[in-house]
């Protein structure tokens, strides 16, 4: 039984990464109508950010946790202003191609500077141990990842549900023209929301550095899984993407532990196909939602 509990907690910890990435993708898509293909590359930049903070600046993990998202928030805003905004009035395909191009540039630049070889990164000493409750033993660091992801999701939910900014973002996501007609300056919030989505991806990247090999391509395959998560949850649905992220993490963990290998590999894509057939707008999306 403790095995089942461990697998479940483990699924929630893995799901934390999906949830944070999916949340960022969902708010960006909702607010800008942009499918940000570069999200995986921003996640990778977050992990390299942690590496640079540790090895070049000599500052521990905790500094990276604060610094890297802030830097990526600013970089994200600059990127939105400089190029993304110019293409948003056009067909969404343009921004999709643009962000795809940005992904290739970022991957090539990181490979050129750091090499294709993975860069070493150890978990912070404070969290290197394990949490033991009876027969249940689990690495403290992974529980921390789950905690951060859950906190981010709750914070985002609170901000959207309870603050004035949240009201504007939700209104602008669902009825952009009507919101504008009511005199709300939607454009003012577009840039910070994009920056926020990128910062979340960066934060997920910092959290991933101690768990995964830090390579230039670490986000390239993950982004495909996250796209599937967002589609299952409902494009642009913020709650949907977060809950689906955690749920997919748990289901995959169970499948890998108790089912033949092929089930774990196919599960997410079979789910995506099934959801698209039965509820094309996604589990939490509304039928009127764009796309």
């Amino acid at each position, binding site marked *: 039984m*403790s*095995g089942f509990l*461990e*697998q479940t907690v*483990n*699924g929630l*910890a*893995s799901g934390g990464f999906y949830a944070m990435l999916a949340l960022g993708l969902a708010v960006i898509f909702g607010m800008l109508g942009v499918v940000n293909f570069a999200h995986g590359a921003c996640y990778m930049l977050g992990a390299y950010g942690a590496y640079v903070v540790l090895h070049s600046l000599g500052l521990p993990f905790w500094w990276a946790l604060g610094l890297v998202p802030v830097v990526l928030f600013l970089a994200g805003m600059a990127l939105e202003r400089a190029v993304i905004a110019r293409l948003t009035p056009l*067909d969404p*395909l*343009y921004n999709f*191609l643009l962000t795809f191009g940005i992904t290739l540039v970022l991957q090539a630049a990181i*490979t050129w500077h750091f*090499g*294709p*070889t*993975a*860069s*070493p990164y*150890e*978990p912070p000493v404070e969290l290197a141990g*394990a949490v033991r409750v009876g027969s249940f*033993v689990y*690495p403290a*660091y*992974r529980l921390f990842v789950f905690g951060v992801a859950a906190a981010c999701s709750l914070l985002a939910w609170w901000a959207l549900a309870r603050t004035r900014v949240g009201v504007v973002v939700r209104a602008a996501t669902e009825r952009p023209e009507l919101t504008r007609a009511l005199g709300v300056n939607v454009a003012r919030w577009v840039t910070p929301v994009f920056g926020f989505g990128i910062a979340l991806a960066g934060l997920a990247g910092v959290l991933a550095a*101690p*768990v*995964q*090999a830090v*390579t230039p*391509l*670490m986000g390239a*395959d*993950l982004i*495909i*899984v996250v796209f599937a998560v967002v589609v299952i949850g409902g494009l642009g649905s913020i709650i949907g993407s977060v809950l689906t992220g955690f749920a997919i993490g748990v289901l*995959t*963990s169970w499948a*890998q*532990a108790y089912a033949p*290998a*092929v089930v*774990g*590999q196919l599960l997410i894509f079979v789910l995506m196909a099934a959801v698209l057939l039965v509820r094309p707008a996604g589990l939490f999306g509304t039928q009127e939602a764009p796309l």
Partner: protein
Amino acid sequence: MRVHLGRRLRVATTLGVAAALLAACSGGGPASGSSTKLSDNKIVLGVLNDQSGPYSQLGGKNAVTAVQMAIDDFKAKYGAKAITKNITVISADHQNKPDVAKTDAQQMYGRQQVDAIFDVPTSSAAVAVADVAKQSKRLYFNISGASDDLNGKSCNKYTYHYAYDTNMLAATTGIAATQNGDKNWYIIYPDYLFGQQMRDGFSAAVKSAGGTVVATAASPFPNPTEDYSSLLLKASTLSSKPDTLGAMQAGADLQNVVKQYNQFKLKDKGIKLVVGLMFITDINSLGPDALAGTEFTDPWYWNFDQTNRAFADRFEAKTHSRPTFAHAANYSAAMNYLEAVQAAGTDNADKVVAGLDGKHINDLFLRNGTIRAADHLVTHDTYLAQVKPSSEVSEAWDYEKIVATIPADKAYAPPSGDCHM
């Protein structure tokens, strides 16, 4: 009208981008010329490997550098007496996909007039290239592909299996570890040809040395989430508890397994780590302390003797990295191919094969090396190595202690009955 224009522009843009991508992916062009000795008055070597994915560190672009070094050394050795001065190397990224590898190999042997293909990691891709070599009647020196199918049921006259194979890894690491007391194994493997053969090879080796395999589990390949935690957690909840985790993942995948093995404290739970295949780049990426004490088989180590070290110094000057055994093997294979062409006086594949078969070689990479005529496996001495803790590492990349030399005839199994040339 505007709408139509916009849509047309959009289609045009998409097509334009597609065309640009396609153009970027292909290269080279037709060439002409004839000679009595060489089919096209030049020798072209092709390196086909993973240049961006999980196996790009162990071979990748640096393998192209190694082959170029062989070309330079060959030209320097023969000077004006060389069969031709026009020797070049080209390369392609097969992304570890058998279908891409097959198309690339066909293009190399065809339009790009490649005389011999080198490297090709990912066993399933290597087997695909071996088939193309057979059909094209051109040479293929497999370096990084480990599957023993390459010298078994997929063997052919034009394919040589250099460096190592799954049988050899199992017969060395698997038996040594079991004899040292690792009796109950839980084996995790990447779910494709290499991983499956490693699982079978290690299972057989463990049993023959008196151990048992309590469970095996597959991980996806490629693994998009890079998450192995479920498989690792399973280790301590199996009904019959293992004392050894046999990890058969390779390259960046192995690095993720080791990181997560350490995080889940399996060592503290009494489960030791044994890796099936490890390259020095893996140790460098993880840091030696993450692997200290781990035993594994290394077919070649850069700091083993002066010969190796001299090569490693030249290699590092060009690449800023010490060579893996695959880099050294690519150099050795390219050099031996060029020597065979020089000796035969032609690049005719059948005549080169006749010169290579049965040859005994001692060079940078091959010690007590033999090119077996029966199945084209290239056997040589290999080494049982142990990762040093960082306190014993005296310089960068000095990560291995060679525990034992395993003579060629002990390391490699005799030719299998599945091979029919």
